[in-house]
């Protein structure tokens, strides 16, 4: 079938502001949007620029706005979109070129939650014990691939400085890990002015997550933890 891709383009070397260009490509209904983008890049216009790598929703490279929603281009099929598809870069980040945005601020937020296990007790010679029930608490949030779909779908993130959903998900992943010993420090970071309280439970993040993580739920769990541990 034929589909028309309407793609936001921007080359900082020649353009003062972004513009749209349309491309028509021949694709199968079961093709990914990424396949359609590749068709354009490989056979029509090699200057079209986007990130991609694994092509099956695991590496998180090809997050972009597809018909207004944050999606991984490799995890949306053409048949679910119809014959006209608008593709734009993620909102809230500086555009480097076409669909490529500067994710450094996103990773800076991630680093701010101390996203690593903290436990200074001397480890046993074998594994630390953790029951399946304890492990289950971090099952959902440890799936995060840091694609930025959630954070850049958040209206608060568009207008206000705050940690954003992805960083909180990764804070949650350690806060709820029975092996971690930095609960107080983590809660202090997440309890800041720019922390979890900026969340207005809009659920855009949950809707956008290509990994199906219950993002808003995780943020709420962190809020409750702060309330109960601090009182």
């Amino acid at each position, binding site marked *: 079938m034929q589909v028309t891709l309407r793609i936001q383009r921007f080359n900082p070397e020649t353009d003062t502001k972004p513009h749209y260009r349309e491309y028509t490509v021949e694709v199968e209904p079961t093709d990914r949007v990424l396949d359609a983008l590749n068709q354009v890049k490989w056979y029509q216009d090699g200057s079209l620029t986007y990130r991609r790598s694994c092509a099956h*929703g695991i*590496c998180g490279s090809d997050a972009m706005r597809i018909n207004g929603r944050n999606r991984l281009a490799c995890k949306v099929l053409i048949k679910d979109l119809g014959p006209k598809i608008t593709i734009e870069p993620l909102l809230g980040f500086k555009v480097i*070129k076409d669909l490529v945005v500067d994710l450094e601020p996103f990773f800076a937020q991630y680093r701010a939650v101390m996203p690593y296990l903290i436990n200074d007790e001397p480890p046993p010679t074998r*594994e630390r014990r953790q029951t399946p029930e304890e492990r289950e608490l*971090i099952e959902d949030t440890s*799936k995060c691939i840091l694609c930025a779909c959630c954070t850049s779908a958040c209206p608060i993130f568009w207008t206000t400085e705050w940690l954003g959903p992805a960083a909180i998900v990764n804070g949650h992943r350690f806060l709820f890990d029975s092996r971690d010993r930095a609960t107080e420090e983590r809660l202090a970071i997440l309890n800041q002015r720019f922390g979890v309280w900026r969340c207005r439970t809009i659920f855009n993040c949950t809707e956008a997550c290509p990994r199906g993580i219950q993002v808003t739920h995780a943020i709420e769990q962190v809020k409750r933890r702060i309330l109960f541990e601090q009182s």
Partner: protein
Amino acid sequence: MYHRFDAVIVGAGGAGLMAAAQLAGKCNVAVISKLYPVRSHTGAAQGGIAAALANVEEDHWIWHMFDTVKGGDYLVDQDAAEVLAREAIDAIIELEHWGFPFNRLPDGRIDQRRFGGHTRNFGEAPVRRSCYAADRTGHMILQTLYQQSIKNQVVFFDEFMMLDLLLTDDGVCTGVVALDIETGELHIFHAKAVLLATGGFGRVYKVTSNALSLTGDGVAIVFRRGLPLEDMEFYQFHPTGIYKLGILLSEACRGEGGILRNGLGERFMERYAPTLLDLAPRDVVSRSIYLEIREGRGVEGKDYVYLDLTHLPKEVIETKLADNTDFVRTYLGLDPVTDPIPIQPTAHYAMGGIPTDVDGRVTIDAQNTPVPGLYAAGECACVSVHGANRLGTNSLVDLVVFGRRAGRHMLQFVQENDLHPLPKEPDYRARAEIEWILENEGEEKVATIRTELQEAMMADASVFRTGDGLRRMQDKLVELRNRFTRISIDDRSRTFNTDLVEAIELGYLLDCAEAIVACALAREESRGAHYREDFPQRDDANWLKHTLVTRTSGGLELSYKPVIITRFQPKERTY
């Protein structure tokens, strides 16, 4: 731009980040990566990481070592396999202490499951050896190691693509040249030691589980600099790729009890591997699938068979194989709980690559003479622990065990050695390559040449090979190389020029393909993943040896080096 470090690591997958963890805070180290580190393809590994923890049933490292040697059809260097099997145990514990979220047993210890070719008591029956985090074990390794890198404040150069390796005339490695993809600027990294951890080159084939960025960069650059590559003819096809797409469905599907069925509904592995059945090693299973298809027993006479999980409890499918279930639902619109899944073998893993010793030092000859300051680890390297065919889960073991060893040896090296001066005009080759591609005016398209390469390699240099097919492929490569000189690209800008990146990558793929084909044509026997229809038997008298291929001014030169055999004499390989 010029940078000076003690150690530079190229590639931020499992091997690179594991090495970085050994060096961070102890010397001045930088990691260069073509992608953001969390995008690396280690993250796509699914089923598990093997270690004889014996948490669920009796197990011993020597059983793991034996399985690795036999799985590799006795082409494995057994000193390296012993290191792998022994140190896997400690490496898993280290990952756990760093926060890796393993699935657990009720008593809190790490759970383990079955995987292809891993057996109890030297081949008796499948053993539960694979540690795992649902079916995203690689994702959790990548995340855990990246988390450690942040904790250790490792310096990263994200979206920097290596273009050249700097070697002095007397063969000492002094650094690398890389392209900053965002700005188009060239950077010279002057270092005492360099680790190549650049991953594989699955994109030489049409149907592959590999990411689009897996184009053999490190392997090809080493080859261009006149250093040898080892065992390039051994390329693994994973039995269960999603039909046509090649997206991997984990061996864990069969580890949890999944069954392969042909078009008649038969469990055909009964014919080919009566003991291990569907959990036979990957080379055996992939060949069996193709044989079924050839004999007209594919589904509806087509070129695929079924992976059947429908008899498994829904709970197992939804939780222990959650990502696989998601892939099948997303890309095929089928539900593994109720529908059998169409699969075909998919190009997956290079057993061969840059020759190294057990400390990750790159070696150049049959005597294993090292290149001072140059290291390699992970899929781009050939230690060789995988021999002619890698066992499932052993790639992740390889990453952590040999990434760690390489990092430790590098630390010692940079503490004992001074910085060597750079060669004159260190970036002239990289500069020339970029200028050539940006300015060339020709009628050929990069994508067209790449697609023809991938299709031809699939036809003539994949699971089944013949002398005639490989010679045809050699001719095709001459033609494609010739056409490659007449490419032109659309994007002539400096900023984030992925058109340029893809052209450079095609050059790397052509190098890798040429090495694969030359080695495969020379090896007149069948062993592991290398199956020659015109020489269907393993021939230990003539071919129990590693291939080394080197590019010289007169073309490719082949030489051989002995396999290190310590504990297990080669035997007939049946399952």
